Protein backbone atom coordinates (compact mmCIF):
# COMPACT_ATOMS: atom_id res chain seq x y z
CA UNK A 1 0.00 0.00 0.00
CA UNK A 2 1.44 3.37 -0.90
CA UNK A 3 0.94 6.14 1.61
CA UNK A 4 -0.03 9.68 0.83
CA UNK A 5 3.00 11.89 1.53
CA UNK A 6 2.78 13.51 4.95
CA UNK A 7 2.99 17.31 5.03
CA UNK A 8 6.50 18.78 5.27
CA UNK A 9 5.24 22.31 5.87
CA UNK A 10 2.84 23.69 8.48
CA UNK A 11 -0.84 23.58 7.52
CA UNK A 12 -1.80 27.24 7.19
CA UNK A 13 -4.90 27.00 5.02
CA UNK A 14 -7.54 25.01 6.83
CA UNK A 15 -11.32 25.12 6.34
CA UNK A 16 -14.25 23.73 8.31
CA UNK A 17 -17.31 23.14 6.14
CA UNK A 18 -20.87 22.72 7.42
CA UNK A 19 -24.11 22.43 5.50
CA UNK A 20 -22.71 20.39 2.61
CA UNK A 21 -26.08 18.71 3.13
CA UNK A 22 -28.49 21.47 4.07
CA UNK A 23 -30.62 19.44 6.51
CA UNK A 24 -27.72 18.09 8.60
CA UNK A 25 -28.08 20.65 11.28
CA UNK A 26 -25.02 20.34 13.53
CA UNK A 27 -22.72 21.57 10.76
CA UNK A 28 -25.22 24.10 9.41
CA UNK A 29 -25.54 25.81 12.79
CA UNK A 30 -21.83 25.59 13.63
CA UNK A 31 -20.86 27.10 10.27
CA UNK A 32 -23.39 29.93 10.70
CA UNK A 33 -22.14 30.54 14.24
CA UNK A 34 -18.48 30.64 13.15
CA UNK A 35 -19.20 32.91 10.18
CA UNK A 36 -20.42 35.45 12.75
CA UNK A 37 -17.80 34.69 15.43
CA UNK A 38 -14.75 32.98 13.89
CA UNK A 39 -12.56 33.35 16.99
CA UNK A 40 -13.20 29.77 18.01
CA UNK A 41 -11.45 28.57 14.83
CA UNK A 42 -8.21 30.49 15.48
CA UNK A 43 -4.98 28.86 16.59
CA UNK A 44 -1.54 30.44 16.96
CA UNK A 45 -0.28 29.10 13.63
CA UNK A 46 -3.45 29.41 11.52
CA UNK A 47 -7.08 30.52 11.41
CA UNK A 48 -9.48 27.98 9.98
CA UNK A 49 -12.01 29.35 7.47
CA UNK A 50 -15.67 28.53 8.17
CA UNK A 51 -17.65 27.60 5.05
CA UNK A 52 -21.40 27.13 4.66
CA UNK A 53 -20.98 24.77 1.74
CA UNK A 54 -24.53 24.61 0.35
CA UNK A 55 -26.28 27.82 1.43
CA UNK A 56 -29.33 27.35 -0.81
CA UNK A 57 -30.00 23.87 0.55
CA UNK A 58 -29.40 25.05 4.12
CA UNK A 59 -31.89 27.90 3.65
CA UNK A 60 -34.49 25.41 2.41
CA UNK A 61 -33.48 22.80 5.04
CA UNK A 62 -33.00 20.19 2.35
CA UNK A 63 -30.14 17.83 1.59
CA UNK A 64 -29.60 19.51 -1.79
CA UNK A 65 -31.39 21.61 -4.35
CA UNK A 66 -30.66 19.72 -7.60
CA UNK A 67 -28.10 17.02 -6.80
CA UNK A 68 -25.89 15.79 -3.96
CA UNK A 69 -23.07 18.35 -3.60
CA UNK A 70 -20.89 15.78 -1.86
CA UNK A 71 -20.85 13.62 -5.02
CA UNK A 72 -20.08 16.46 -7.40
CA UNK A 73 -16.33 17.07 -6.96
CA UNK A 74 -15.28 14.89 -9.87
CA UNK A 75 -13.17 16.23 -12.72
CA UNK A 76 -16.11 15.76 -15.12
CA UNK A 77 -18.22 18.28 -13.18
CA UNK A 78 -15.42 20.59 -12.13
CA UNK A 79 -13.86 20.99 -15.57
CA UNK A 80 -16.92 20.97 -17.86
CA UNK A 81 -17.74 24.29 -19.49
CA UNK A 82 -20.18 26.22 -17.26
CA UNK A 83 -23.71 26.48 -18.62
CA UNK A 84 -26.68 28.51 -17.31
CA UNK A 85 -28.73 25.31 -17.00
CA UNK A 86 -26.18 23.57 -14.79
CA UNK A 87 -27.64 22.10 -11.61
CA UNK A 88 -27.17 24.44 -8.64
CA UNK A 89 -24.74 22.09 -6.92
CA UNK A 90 -22.54 21.81 -10.01
CA UNK A 91 -22.15 25.59 -10.07
CA UNK A 92 -21.59 25.62 -6.32
CA UNK A 93 -18.98 22.84 -6.55
CA UNK A 94 -17.03 24.96 -9.05
CA UNK A 95 -17.21 27.94 -6.69
CA UNK A 96 -16.02 25.83 -3.76
CA UNK A 97 -13.31 24.38 -5.97
CA UNK A 98 -12.09 27.93 -6.60
CA UNK A 99 -12.19 28.68 -2.87
CA UNK A 100 -10.75 25.42 -1.48
CA UNK A 101 -8.89 24.04 -4.52
CA UNK A 102 -8.41 23.87 -7.35
CA UNK A 103 -8.54 20.14 -6.77
CA UNK A 104 -5.14 18.44 -7.13
CA UNK A 105 -3.31 21.76 -7.43
CA UNK A 106 -0.57 23.33 -5.33
CA UNK A 107 -2.88 26.23 -4.47
CA UNK A 108 -5.47 24.05 -2.80
CA UNK A 109 -6.25 24.27 0.92
CA UNK A 110 -4.09 22.10 3.15
CA UNK A 111 -6.96 20.49 5.03
CA UNK A 112 -10.76 20.57 4.97
CA UNK A 113 -12.95 19.14 7.71
CA UNK A 114 -16.49 18.52 6.45
CA UNK A 115 -19.28 18.21 9.06
CA UNK A 116 -22.21 15.81 8.60
CA UNK A 117 -25.03 14.12 10.47
CA UNK A 118 -26.73 10.83 9.84
CA UNK A 119 -29.98 9.27 11.00
CA UNK A 120 -27.98 6.05 11.57
CA UNK A 121 -26.64 5.18 15.01
CA UNK A 122 -22.97 5.59 14.08
CA UNK A 123 -21.98 7.67 17.12
CA UNK A 124 -18.84 9.53 16.09
CA UNK A 125 -17.65 8.36 12.69
CA UNK A 126 -14.54 9.73 11.00
CA UNK A 127 -14.81 9.40 7.24
CA UNK A 128 -11.66 9.00 5.13
CA UNK A 129 -11.12 7.88 1.60
CA UNK A 130 -8.42 5.31 2.32
CA UNK A 131 -5.93 4.01 4.88
CA UNK A 132 -3.06 5.53 2.89
CA UNK A 133 -3.82 8.90 4.48
CA UNK A 134 -1.29 8.80 7.33
CA UNK A 135 -1.77 12.39 8.44
CA UNK A 136 -5.56 12.04 8.69
CA UNK A 137 -5.22 8.75 10.57
CA UNK A 138 -3.03 10.53 13.14
CA UNK A 139 -5.72 13.18 13.41
CA UNK A 140 -8.33 10.43 13.95
CA UNK A 141 -6.14 8.87 16.63
CA UNK A 142 -5.89 12.24 18.37
CA UNK A 143 -9.69 12.60 18.33
CA UNK A 144 -10.15 9.08 19.69
CA UNK A 145 -7.80 9.83 22.60
CA UNK A 146 -9.72 12.99 23.55
CA UNK A 147 -12.76 11.10 24.81
CA UNK A 148 -11.85 7.41 25.01
CA UNK A 149 -15.18 6.60 26.68
CA UNK A 150 -17.12 7.49 23.50
CA UNK A 151 -16.90 5.23 20.46
CA UNK A 152 -15.14 7.04 17.64
CA UNK A 153 -14.68 4.86 14.56
CA UNK A 154 -12.85 5.29 11.30
CA UNK A 155 -14.75 4.50 8.10
CA UNK A 156 -12.88 4.22 4.78
CA UNK A 157 -15.34 4.82 2.00
CA UNK A 158 -13.43 4.79 -1.26
CA UNK A 159 -13.83 1.65 -3.35
CA UNK A 160 -10.81 0.50 -5.38
CA UNK A 161 -10.34 2.55 -8.54
CA UNK A 162 -13.06 5.05 -7.59
CA UNK A 163 -12.42 8.76 -8.27
CA UNK A 164 -12.75 11.03 -5.26
CA UNK A 165 -15.98 13.04 -5.31
CA UNK A 166 -16.46 14.67 -1.91
CA UNK A 167 -16.25 18.32 -0.92
CA UNK A 168 -13.03 17.81 1.02
CA UNK A 169 -11.40 16.22 -2.03
CA UNK A 170 -11.01 19.75 -3.45
CA UNK A 171 -8.30 20.32 -0.84
CA UNK A 172 -4.92 18.61 -0.55
CA UNK A 173 -6.22 16.64 2.38
CA UNK A 174 -9.36 16.35 4.43
CA UNK A 175 -11.95 14.17 6.02
CA UNK A 176 -15.60 14.01 6.95
CA UNK A 177 -17.01 13.98 10.44
CA UNK A 178 -20.35 12.16 10.82
CA UNK A 179 -22.36 12.30 14.02
CA UNK A 180 -25.54 10.31 14.57
CA UNK A 181 -28.22 9.48 15.15
CA UNK A 182 -29.94 12.80 14.44
CA UNK A 183 -33.04 13.29 12.30
CA UNK A 184 -32.74 15.57 9.29
CA UNK A 185 -33.86 19.07 10.19
CA UNK A 186 -33.31 18.58 13.93
CA UNK A 187 -30.57 20.12 16.03
CA UNK A 188 -29.76 18.10 19.14
CA UNK A 189 -27.72 19.80 21.84
CA UNK A 190 -25.72 16.67 22.67
CA UNK A 191 -24.48 16.20 19.09
CA UNK A 192 -23.97 19.93 18.57
CA UNK A 193 -21.73 20.10 21.65
CA UNK A 194 -19.88 16.94 20.64
CA UNK A 195 -19.20 18.16 17.13
CA UNK A 196 -17.97 21.48 18.39
CA UNK A 197 -15.54 19.71 20.74
CA UNK A 198 -14.32 17.41 17.95
CA UNK A 199 -13.61 20.33 15.63
CA UNK A 200 -11.73 22.12 18.41
CA UNK A 201 -9.66 18.98 19.04
CA UNK A 202 -8.94 18.58 15.30
CA UNK A 203 -7.69 22.16 15.08
CA UNK A 204 -5.61 21.58 18.23
CA UNK A 205 -3.99 18.59 16.53
CA UNK A 206 -3.08 20.65 13.47
CA UNK A 207 -1.63 23.30 15.79
CA UNK A 208 0.46 20.67 17.59
CA UNK A 209 1.76 19.39 14.26
CA UNK A 210 2.48 22.91 13.01
CA UNK A 211 4.48 23.77 16.11
CA UNK A 212 6.76 20.78 15.62
CA UNK A 213 5.21 17.91 17.56
CA UNK A 214 6.08 14.39 16.41
CA UNK A 215 3.48 11.62 16.72
CA UNK A 216 4.51 7.99 17.29
CA UNK A 217 3.40 5.02 15.21
CA UNK A 218 0.30 3.10 16.36
CA UNK A 219 -2.14 0.44 15.31
CA UNK A 220 -5.76 1.29 14.64
CA UNK A 221 -8.97 -0.55 13.87
CA UNK A 222 -10.72 0.71 10.74
CA UNK A 223 -13.85 -0.23 8.80
CA UNK A 224 -13.54 -0.33 5.02
CA UNK A 225 -16.55 -0.23 2.71
CA UNK A 226 -16.85 -3.33 0.56
CA UNK A 227 -20.37 -2.91 -0.81
CA UNK A 228 -23.94 -1.98 -0.06
CA UNK A 229 -27.27 -3.72 0.38
CA UNK A 230 -30.58 -2.30 -0.90
CA UNK A 231 -33.98 -2.59 0.78
CA UNK A 232 -36.34 -5.37 -0.31
CA UNK A 233 -38.55 -3.90 -3.02
CA UNK A 234 -41.81 -4.64 -4.80
CA UNK A 235 -41.91 -5.08 -8.56
CA UNK A 236 -42.83 -1.41 -8.84
CA UNK A 237 -39.68 -0.48 -6.91
CA UNK A 238 -41.46 0.46 -3.69
CA UNK A 239 -40.19 -0.70 -0.33
CA UNK A 240 -41.44 -4.18 0.56
CA UNK A 241 -40.10 -4.02 4.10
CA UNK A 242 -37.64 -2.24 6.30
CA UNK A 243 -34.53 -2.78 8.39
CA UNK A 244 -35.05 -5.58 10.88
CA UNK A 245 -35.32 -4.58 14.56
CA UNK A 246 -32.31 -6.80 15.27
CA UNK A 247 -30.20 -4.81 12.80
CA UNK A 248 -31.60 -1.31 13.39
CA UNK A 249 -29.17 0.89 15.42
CA UNK A 250 -26.45 -1.83 15.37
CA UNK A 251 -23.95 0.05 13.22
CA UNK A 252 -20.38 -1.31 13.46
CA UNK A 253 -21.56 -4.54 15.13
CA UNK A 254 -20.80 -7.88 13.43
CA UNK A 255 -23.49 -9.19 11.06
CA UNK A 256 -23.32 -12.94 10.54
CA UNK A 257 -24.57 -14.93 7.55
CA UNK A 258 -28.14 -16.05 8.22
CA UNK A 259 -28.98 -13.18 10.60
CA UNK A 260 -32.19 -11.24 9.87
CA UNK A 261 -31.64 -7.93 8.10
CA UNK A 262 -35.10 -6.91 6.88
CA UNK A 263 -38.65 -7.31 8.10
CA UNK A 264 -41.13 -7.48 5.23
CA UNK A 265 -44.54 -5.83 5.57
CA UNK A 266 -46.04 -9.29 5.11
CA UNK A 267 -44.37 -10.26 8.40
CA UNK A 268 -41.56 -12.46 7.04
CA UNK A 269 -37.89 -11.86 7.70
CA UNK A 270 -35.18 -11.54 5.06
CA UNK A 271 -31.83 -12.98 6.10
CA UNK A 272 -28.29 -11.90 5.36
CA UNK A 273 -27.01 -14.13 2.60
CA UNK A 274 -23.33 -13.11 2.54
CA UNK A 275 -20.64 -15.67 3.12
CA UNK A 276 -18.69 -13.99 5.89
CA UNK A 277 -19.11 -11.59 8.78
CA UNK A 278 -19.45 -7.94 7.79
CA UNK A 279 -19.86 -4.79 9.84
CA UNK A 280 -22.86 -2.78 8.63
CA UNK A 281 -22.73 1.01 8.82
CA UNK A 282 -25.12 3.82 7.90
CA UNK A 283 -28.01 1.48 8.64
CA UNK A 284 -31.32 3.09 7.66
CA UNK A 285 -29.87 6.49 6.74
CA UNK A 286 -32.74 8.65 5.43
CA UNK A 287 -30.78 10.10 2.53
CA UNK A 288 -29.77 6.70 1.15
CA UNK A 289 -33.27 5.42 0.38
CA UNK A 290 -33.10 7.21 -2.98
CA UNK A 291 -29.61 5.81 -3.57
CA UNK A 292 -30.88 2.25 -3.08
CA UNK A 293 -28.79 1.68 0.04
CA UNK A 294 -30.19 0.19 3.25
CA UNK A 295 -26.67 -0.10 4.70
CA UNK A 296 -23.02 -0.37 3.72
CA UNK A 297 -21.14 -3.57 4.36
CA UNK A 298 -17.67 -2.99 5.76
CA UNK A 299 -14.81 -5.21 6.74
CA UNK A 300 -12.92 -4.51 9.92
CA UNK A 301 -9.16 -4.68 9.98
CA UNK A 302 -6.17 -3.22 11.78
CA UNK A 303 -3.81 -0.80 10.10
CA UNK A 304 -0.28 -0.04 11.27
CA UNK A 305 0.12 3.68 10.95
CA UNK A 306 3.74 4.87 10.73
CA UNK A 307 5.02 7.68 12.92
CA UNK A 308 4.31 11.24 11.85
CA UNK A 309 7.68 12.99 11.99
CA UNK A 310 8.02 16.46 13.43
CA UNK A 311 8.30 19.30 10.96
CA UNK A 312 11.81 20.60 10.54
CA UNK A 313 12.14 23.82 12.51
CA UNK A 314 11.46 26.66 10.12
CA UNK A 315 12.71 30.20 10.24
CA UNK A 316 11.37 32.10 13.23
CA UNK A 317 8.20 33.95 12.26
Amino acid at each position, binding site marked *: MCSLPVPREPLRRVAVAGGTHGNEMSGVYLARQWLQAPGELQRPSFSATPVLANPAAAAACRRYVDRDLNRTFTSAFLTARPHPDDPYEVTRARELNQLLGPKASGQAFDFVLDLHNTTANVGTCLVLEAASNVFALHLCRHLQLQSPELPCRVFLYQLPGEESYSVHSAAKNGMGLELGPQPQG*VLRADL*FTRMRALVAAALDFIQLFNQGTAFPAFEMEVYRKVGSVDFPRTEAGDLAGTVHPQLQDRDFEPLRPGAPIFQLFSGEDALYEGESIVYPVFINEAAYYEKGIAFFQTEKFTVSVPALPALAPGPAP
Partner: protein
Amino acid sequence: MTSCHVVKDSIKKVAIFGGTHGNELTGVFLVKHWLENAAEIQRTGLEVKPFITNPRAVKKCTRYIDCDLNRVFNPENLGKKISEDLPYEVRRAQEINNLFGPKDSEDSYDIIFDLHNTTSNMGCTLILEDSRNDFLIQMFHYIKTSLSPLPCYVYLIEHPSLKYATTRSIATYPVGIEVGPQPQGVLRADILDQMRKMIKYALDFIHNFNEGKEFPPCAIEVYKIMEKVDYPRNENGEIAAIIHPNLQDQDWKPLRPGDPVFLTLDGKTIPLGGDSTVYPVFVNEAAYYEKKEAFAKTTKLTLNAKSIRSALH
Protein backbone atom coordinates in the same frame (compact mmCIF):
# COMPACT_ATOMS: atom_id res chain seq x y z
CA MET B 1 -81.74 0.49 37.56
CA THR B 2 -81.81 3.48 35.30
CA SER B 3 -79.65 3.11 32.26
CA CYS B 4 -77.34 6.11 31.80
CA HIS B 5 -75.46 4.93 28.76
CA VAL B 6 -75.30 6.78 25.50
CA VAL B 7 -76.72 5.00 22.49
CA LYS B 8 -74.99 5.76 19.23
CA ASP B 9 -75.39 4.70 15.62
CA SER B 10 -73.18 1.88 14.51
CA ILE B 11 -70.05 2.73 12.54
CA LYS B 12 -70.22 2.07 8.83
CA LYS B 13 -67.43 3.91 7.03
CA VAL B 14 -63.85 4.23 8.24
CA ALA B 15 -60.85 5.66 6.42
CA ILE B 16 -57.17 5.29 7.26
CA PHE B 17 -55.06 8.15 5.92
CA GLY B 18 -51.32 7.87 5.34
CA GLY B 19 -48.93 10.36 3.78
CA THR B 20 -50.73 13.50 4.90
CA HIS B 21 -47.10 14.49 5.47
CA GLY B 22 -45.13 12.79 2.72
CA ASN B 23 -41.95 12.17 4.72
CA GLU B 24 -43.66 10.49 7.69
CA LEU B 25 -43.09 7.04 6.35
CA THR B 26 -44.89 4.67 8.74
CA GLY B 27 -48.35 5.73 7.59
CA VAL B 28 -47.21 5.92 3.97
CA PHE B 29 -46.04 2.31 3.92
CA LEU B 30 -48.79 0.86 6.10
CA VAL B 31 -51.42 2.39 3.82
CA LYS B 32 -49.58 1.29 0.66
CA HIS B 33 -49.36 -2.22 2.11
CA TRP B 34 -53.07 -2.25 3.02
CA LEU B 35 -54.03 -1.04 -0.46
CA GLU B 36 -52.52 -4.30 -1.75
CA ASN B 37 -53.35 -6.59 1.20
CA ALA B 38 -56.50 -5.46 2.96
CA ALA B 39 -57.26 -8.55 5.07
CA GLU B 40 -55.59 -7.12 8.17
CA ILE B 41 -57.87 -4.09 8.32
CA GLN B 42 -61.13 -5.73 7.28
CA ARG B 43 -63.87 -6.20 9.88
CA THR B 44 -67.31 -7.70 9.20
CA GLY B 45 -69.91 -5.16 8.16
CA LEU B 46 -67.44 -2.29 8.13
CA GLU B 47 -66.03 -0.42 5.16
CA VAL B 48 -62.36 0.42 5.86
CA LYS B 49 -60.64 2.46 3.18
CA PRO B 50 -56.87 3.03 3.24
CA PHE B 51 -55.90 6.19 1.39
CA ILE B 52 -52.75 8.19 0.53
CA THR B 53 -53.72 11.80 1.10
CA ASN B 54 -50.73 13.68 -0.33
CA PRO B 55 -49.33 11.51 -3.14
CA ARG B 56 -47.13 14.23 -4.63
CA ALA B 57 -45.44 14.89 -1.29
CA VAL B 58 -45.05 11.12 -0.77
CA LYS B 59 -43.37 10.79 -4.14
CA LYS B 60 -40.89 13.56 -3.28
CA CYS B 61 -40.53 12.36 0.32
CA THR B 62 -41.21 15.84 1.59
CA ARG B 63 -43.71 17.10 4.18
CA TYR B 64 -45.72 19.03 1.58
CA ILE B 65 -45.49 20.62 -1.86
CA ASP B 66 -46.94 24.12 -1.34
CA CYS B 67 -48.41 24.23 2.17
CA ASP B 68 -49.22 21.93 5.08
CA LEU B 69 -52.20 19.73 4.07
CA ASN B 70 -53.01 19.16 7.73
CA ARG B 71 -53.81 22.83 8.31
CA VAL B 72 -56.13 23.67 5.40
CA PHE B 73 -59.40 21.87 6.18
CA ASN B 74 -61.22 25.04 7.19
CA PRO B 75 -64.31 26.50 5.47
CA GLU B 76 -62.24 29.23 3.83
CA ASN B 77 -59.90 26.85 1.99
CA LEU B 78 -62.51 24.16 1.35
CA GLY B 79 -64.78 26.82 -0.20
CA LYS B 80 -62.24 28.40 -2.50
CA LYS B 81 -63.00 28.34 -6.20
CA ILE B 82 -60.82 25.71 -7.88
CA SER B 83 -58.08 27.18 -10.01
CA GLU B 84 -54.56 26.27 -11.05
CA ASP B 85 -53.28 29.13 -8.89
CA LEU B 86 -54.42 27.48 -5.67
CA PRO B 87 -51.69 25.73 -3.68
CA TYR B 88 -51.58 22.00 -4.49
CA GLU B 89 -52.60 21.04 -0.96
CA VAL B 90 -55.68 23.28 -1.03
CA ARG B 91 -56.83 21.65 -4.28
CA ARG B 92 -56.08 18.25 -2.79
CA ALA B 93 -58.00 19.12 0.40
CA GLN B 94 -61.08 19.83 -1.69
CA GLU B 95 -60.73 16.47 -3.45
CA ILE B 96 -60.36 14.68 -0.11
CA ASN B 97 -63.33 16.58 1.27
CA ASN B 98 -65.42 15.44 -1.71
CA LEU B 99 -64.33 11.82 -1.28
CA PHE B 100 -64.63 11.51 2.51
CA GLY B 101 -66.82 14.44 3.54
CA PRO B 102 -68.20 16.90 2.96
CA LYS B 103 -67.10 18.12 6.35
CA ASP B 104 -70.02 18.60 8.79
CA SER B 105 -72.46 16.74 6.52
CA GLU B 106 -74.39 13.49 6.90
CA ASP B 107 -72.45 11.89 4.06
CA SER B 108 -69.05 12.23 5.67
CA TYR B 109 -67.08 9.21 6.86
CA ASP B 110 -67.77 8.13 10.43
CA ILE B 111 -64.14 7.81 11.48
CA ILE B 112 -60.86 8.89 9.93
CA PHE B 113 -57.56 7.72 11.34
CA ASP B 114 -54.70 9.93 10.18
CA LEU B 115 -51.25 8.36 10.57
CA HIS B 116 -48.29 10.56 11.49
CA ASN B 117 -44.73 10.34 12.77
CA THR B 118 -42.74 12.77 14.82
CA THR B 119 -39.03 13.18 15.47
CA SER B 120 -39.98 13.80 19.12
CA ASN B 121 -39.79 11.03 21.69
CA MET B 122 -43.57 10.83 22.09
CA GLY B 123 -44.07 7.07 21.82
CA CYS B 124 -47.63 6.07 20.86
CA THR B 125 -49.88 9.11 20.88
CA LEU B 126 -53.58 9.53 20.14
CA ILE B 127 -54.77 13.03 19.30
CA LEU B 128 -58.21 14.06 20.49
CA GLU B 129 -59.94 17.21 19.23
CA ASP B 130 -62.99 17.31 21.54
CA SER B 131 -63.00 16.61 25.29
CA ARG B 132 -66.71 15.65 25.41
CA ASN B 133 -66.60 12.91 22.83
CA ASP B 134 -67.68 9.80 24.76
CA PHE B 135 -67.19 7.51 21.79
CA LEU B 136 -63.55 8.49 21.18
CA ILE B 137 -62.70 8.54 24.89
CA GLN B 138 -64.03 5.00 25.05
CA MET B 139 -62.04 4.03 21.96
CA PHE B 140 -58.83 5.59 23.32
CA HIS B 141 -59.40 3.84 26.65
CA TYR B 142 -59.68 0.55 24.79
CA ILE B 143 -56.51 1.18 22.75
CA LYS B 144 -54.54 2.26 25.83
CA THR B 145 -55.64 -0.80 27.79
CA SER B 146 -54.87 -3.14 24.89
CA LEU B 147 -51.39 -1.69 24.32
CA SER B 148 -50.45 -1.77 28.00
CA PRO B 149 -47.74 -2.09 29.31
CA LEU B 150 -46.61 -0.10 26.27
CA PRO B 151 -47.54 3.50 27.16
CA CYS B 152 -50.01 5.33 24.95
CA TYR B 153 -50.63 9.02 25.57
CA VAL B 154 -53.61 11.18 24.62
CA TYR B 155 -52.96 14.73 23.40
CA LEU B 156 -56.02 17.00 23.53
CA ILE B 157 -55.75 19.88 21.05
CA GLU B 158 -59.04 21.55 22.08
CA HIS B 159 -58.10 25.22 22.32
CA PRO B 160 -59.75 28.45 21.11
CA SER B 161 -56.76 29.51 18.99
CA LEU B 162 -54.30 26.58 18.86
CA LYS B 163 -56.63 23.91 17.44
CA TYR B 164 -55.91 23.49 13.74
CA ALA B 165 -57.95 22.42 10.70
CA THR B 166 -56.85 18.80 10.34
CA THR B 167 -57.33 16.50 7.38
CA ARG B 168 -59.21 14.03 9.57
CA SER B 169 -61.62 16.74 10.79
CA ILE B 170 -64.00 16.01 7.91
CA ALA B 171 -65.08 12.81 9.72
CA THR B 172 -67.62 12.61 12.52
CA TYR B 173 -64.89 11.10 14.70
CA PRO B 174 -61.40 12.38 13.83
CA VAL B 175 -58.46 10.42 15.25
CA GLY B 176 -54.85 11.54 14.96
CA ILE B 177 -52.23 8.85 15.47
CA GLU B 178 -48.69 10.03 16.06
CA VAL B 179 -45.78 7.68 16.76
CA GLY B 180 -42.18 8.64 17.42
CA PRO B 181 -39.33 9.15 17.53
CA GLN B 182 -38.64 8.53 13.88
CA PRO B 183 -36.61 10.76 11.57
CA GLN B 184 -38.30 12.14 8.48
CA GLY B 185 -37.65 9.89 5.49
CA VAL B 186 -36.85 6.85 7.66
CA LEU B 187 -38.98 3.78 8.29
CA ARG B 188 -38.26 2.00 11.58
CA ALA B 189 -39.63 -1.50 12.19
CA ASP B 190 -40.34 -0.85 15.90
CA ILE B 191 -42.41 2.28 15.16
CA LEU B 192 -44.23 0.49 12.34
CA ASP B 193 -45.16 -2.34 14.69
CA GLN B 194 -46.53 0.08 17.29
CA MET B 195 -48.65 2.01 14.81
CA ARG B 196 -49.96 -1.21 13.31
CA LYS B 197 -51.09 -2.36 16.76
CA MET B 198 -52.85 0.95 17.44
CA ILE B 199 -54.88 0.55 14.26
CA LYS B 200 -55.63 -3.10 15.00
CA TYR B 201 -57.01 -2.28 18.47
CA ALA B 202 -58.96 0.70 17.14
CA LEU B 203 -60.64 -1.50 14.52
CA ASP B 204 -61.27 -4.21 17.13
CA PHE B 205 -62.98 -1.61 19.31
CA ILE B 206 -65.21 -0.50 16.43
CA HIS B 207 -66.03 -4.11 15.63
CA ASN B 208 -66.97 -4.85 19.25
CA PHE B 209 -69.07 -1.71 19.38
CA ASN B 210 -70.89 -2.60 16.16
CA GLU B 211 -71.51 -6.09 17.51
CA GLY B 212 -73.46 -4.54 20.39
CA LYS B 213 -70.91 -4.73 23.18
CA GLU B 214 -71.61 -2.21 25.92
CA PHE B 215 -68.60 -0.26 27.17
CA PRO B 216 -68.98 0.78 30.82
CA PRO B 217 -68.09 4.29 32.02
CA CYS B 218 -64.35 4.97 31.90
CA ALA B 219 -61.79 7.67 32.51
CA ILE B 220 -58.54 8.48 30.69
CA GLU B 221 -55.65 10.78 31.44
CA VAL B 222 -55.07 13.37 28.73
CA TYR B 223 -52.56 16.14 28.13
CA LYS B 224 -54.29 19.33 27.03
CA ILE B 225 -52.42 21.94 24.99
CA MET B 226 -51.84 25.23 26.84
CA GLU B 227 -49.35 27.12 24.69
CA LYS B 228 -46.65 26.72 22.04
CA VAL B 229 -43.12 27.83 22.87
CA ASP B 230 -40.79 29.19 20.17
CA TYR B 231 -37.00 28.98 20.15
CA PRO B 232 -35.20 32.04 21.48
CA ARG B 233 -34.15 34.07 18.45
CA ASN B 234 -31.66 36.83 17.68
CA GLU B 235 -32.57 40.19 16.17
CA ASN B 236 -32.51 38.64 12.65
CA GLY B 237 -35.03 36.02 13.66
CA GLU B 238 -32.45 33.21 13.63
CA ILE B 239 -32.54 30.52 16.29
CA ALA B 240 -30.22 31.54 19.14
CA ALA B 241 -30.76 28.59 21.47
CA ILE B 242 -31.62 24.92 21.14
CA ILE B 243 -33.49 22.41 23.29
CA HIS B 244 -31.47 21.76 26.44
CA PRO B 245 -30.08 18.20 26.77
CA ASN B 246 -32.11 17.79 30.00
CA LEU B 247 -35.35 18.46 28.09
CA GLN B 248 -34.48 16.57 24.87
CA ASP B 249 -36.47 13.30 24.60
CA GLN B 250 -38.43 14.11 27.79
CA ASP B 251 -41.88 14.47 26.20
CA TRP B 252 -44.77 13.91 28.66
CA LYS B 253 -42.45 14.25 31.69
CA PRO B 254 -43.08 17.02 34.24
CA LEU B 255 -41.12 20.20 33.57
CA ARG B 256 -40.93 22.43 36.63
CA PRO B 257 -40.23 26.15 36.98
CA GLY B 258 -36.45 26.59 37.02
CA ASP B 259 -35.75 23.39 35.03
CA PRO B 260 -33.48 23.93 31.98
CA VAL B 261 -35.35 24.42 28.72
CA PHE B 262 -32.90 25.91 26.19
CA LEU B 263 -29.16 26.04 25.71
CA THR B 264 -27.91 29.14 23.89
CA LEU B 265 -25.37 28.66 21.11
CA ASP B 266 -22.79 30.25 23.40
CA GLY B 267 -23.51 27.81 26.20
CA LYS B 268 -25.96 29.50 28.60
CA THR B 269 -28.96 27.69 30.07
CA ILE B 270 -32.45 29.21 29.90
CA PRO B 271 -34.82 27.80 32.55
CA LEU B 272 -38.61 27.45 32.57
CA GLY B 273 -40.31 30.55 33.96
CA GLY B 274 -43.73 30.82 35.53
CA ASP B 275 -44.89 29.03 38.64
CA SER B 276 -46.56 25.86 37.42
CA THR B 277 -45.40 22.43 36.31
CA VAL B 278 -46.10 21.69 32.65
CA TYR B 279 -45.84 18.58 30.48
CA PRO B 280 -43.91 19.24 27.25
CA VAL B 281 -44.80 17.53 23.97
CA PHE B 282 -43.42 17.72 20.43
CA VAL B 283 -40.02 18.54 21.89
CA ASN B 284 -37.66 19.29 18.98
CA GLU B 285 -39.96 18.15 16.17
CA ALA B 286 -38.18 18.78 12.85
CA ALA B 287 -41.24 20.11 11.03
CA TYR B 288 -42.02 22.69 13.70
CA TYR B 289 -38.85 24.78 13.33
CA GLU B 290 -40.62 26.68 10.53
CA LYS B 291 -43.80 26.87 12.61
CA LYS B 292 -41.79 28.50 15.41
CA GLU B 293 -42.57 25.77 17.90
CA ALA B 294 -39.74 24.28 19.99
CA PHE B 295 -42.28 22.38 22.07
CA ALA B 296 -45.84 22.71 23.35
CA LYS B 297 -46.78 23.00 27.01
CA THR B 298 -49.62 20.82 28.20
CA THR B 299 -51.50 20.32 31.42
CA LYS B 300 -52.59 16.89 32.61
CA LEU B 301 -56.25 16.20 33.30
CA THR B 302 -58.74 13.34 33.42
CA LEU B 303 -61.66 12.93 31.01
CA ASN B 304 -64.65 10.77 31.81
CA ALA B 305 -66.89 9.02 29.33
CA LYS B 306 -70.34 7.63 29.86
CA SER B 307 -71.19 4.07 29.02
CA ILE B 308 -71.81 3.57 25.31
CA ARG B 309 -73.42 0.98 23.13
CA SER B 310 -74.55 0.71 19.56
CA ALA B 311 -78.17 1.54 18.62
CA LEU B 312 -78.60 -1.59 16.52
CA HIS B 313 -78.87 -3.93 19.51
